[in-house]
């Protein structure tokens, strides 16, 4: 850093940066920044040199046109939806099984006629966080999360809810979270506890799902919107079941 660069100039560094980056023009500068720029030769020199540096960086980083082979590969990839790598795997038969299990459970949970379900709903409504997590998982399912994360999140929550409601969960027999059912990361099989459920793997799914949830703005907005509806169980259950029906419809079309 230039020793002549005065600390008073630091107060304007964000404005200079946006100016040099092209996000703003001199007309957008604050009055004090404009005044400072006119009176400070050091900042003017720094700006000029930074403009040169940014211009060189831009030219060095300028993206080249795609190689024609890559262009073709992308177009082929889009036209080849049955690839075994990537997204399509997300809507495999497990998605159907998982949505059916979740739909059945939620329908049972919020059924107004079932006495046990009613009492269970009261128990569960005490913890909206758990319910919201399920909603969040379906928010992910409809956007851009991998199935493993979604299923892990849903499965884990259903498991927890059913345990809280006082009975053993059927979910482990329905959802793909044992090592035998894990088709995607064989290297991690060794981490699973012997002879039992792959709890670390499931934990990984859940953590992964939550990370995806927290790092994708659009889905987070969607999830937030839906989660707020969870405060109204009837509307929430209608909404989630409609969502599940659409997912099942898509999955059954693929079958």
């Amino acid at each position, binding site marked *: 850093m230039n020793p002549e660069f005065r600390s008073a100039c630091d107060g304007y560094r964000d404005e200079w940066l946006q100016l040099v980056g092209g996000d703003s023009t001199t007309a957008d500068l604050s009055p004090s920044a404009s005044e400072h720029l006119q009176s400070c030769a*050091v*900042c003017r020199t720094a700006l000029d*040199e930074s403009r040169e540096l940014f211009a060189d960086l831009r030219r060095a980083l300028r993206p*080249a046109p795609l190689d024609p082979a*890559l262009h073709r590969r992308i177009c082929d990839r889009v036209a080849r939806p049955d690839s075994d790598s990537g997204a399509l795997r997300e809507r495999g038969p497990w998605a159907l099984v998982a949505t059916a299990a979740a739909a059945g459970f939620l329908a049972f949970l919020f059924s107004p006629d079932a006495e046990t379900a009613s009492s269970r709903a009261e128990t569960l409504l005490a913890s909206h966080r758990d319910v919201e997590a399920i909603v969040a998982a379906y928010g992910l399912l409809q956007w851009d999360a991998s199935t493993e994360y979604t299923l892990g999140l849903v499965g884990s929550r259903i498991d927890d809810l059913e345990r809280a409601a006082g009975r053993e969960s059927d979910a482990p027999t329905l959802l793909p979270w044992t090592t035998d059912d894990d088709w995607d990361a064989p290297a991690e099989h060794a981490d699973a506890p012997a002879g039992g459920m792959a709890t670390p793997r499931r934990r990984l799914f859940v953590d992964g799902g939550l990370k995806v949830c927290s790092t994708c703005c659009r889905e987070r907005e969607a999830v937030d919107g839906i989660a707020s509806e969870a405060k109204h169980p009837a509307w929430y259950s209608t909404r989630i079941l409609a969502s599940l029906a659409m997912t099942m419809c898509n999955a059954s079309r693929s079958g």
Partner: protein
Amino acid sequence: MGDRSAVIKPLKGAERAALDRIVRDAGPRVYAYVRRVFPNLDAEEIVSETFFRATRNMKTLMMTERRVFYLLAIARNLCRDGLRRRRPDLIANTELDRRPDEDARPDEVLDDPELRRSLLAAIAQLPDAQREIVVLRLSSELRFEQIAELLHVPLGTVLSRMHAATRRLSIRLGCFHEP
């Protein structure tokens, strides 16, 4: 396992033409981003998968003015996912997959090849978080506000990282002034 191709509607003629145009316009920026920021990943596979996922919502892709942002968000999620889970299909398998900077295409090259090499070497040595912002601003041409939105960090954090990156680059390249 049944035929799952029905889940994704095949693109119609107009959509196919639009896709071709979008790949030509936005593809280079997405590819450059992946290649510069996630050099250990298979950039071609990531970009292909990115477009595949984006075309699941082809109407949005065609209509949105934030197309590059949308594609970069998908690519970034894929890259992070690939690194976290060490997906073999996304990791660059051999050294050959990691296209060295020296092999850059002709129109990527500055007039002064030595300067370009120095610049790229300096960028490559930046901390990941700073390098990502430099690439997003100067290669992907996202505005700082958009970068903040993409990375889910405050604008001040983006500017601070860019400032730090600029300082490092200036020192490394022998410039001593900074904005």
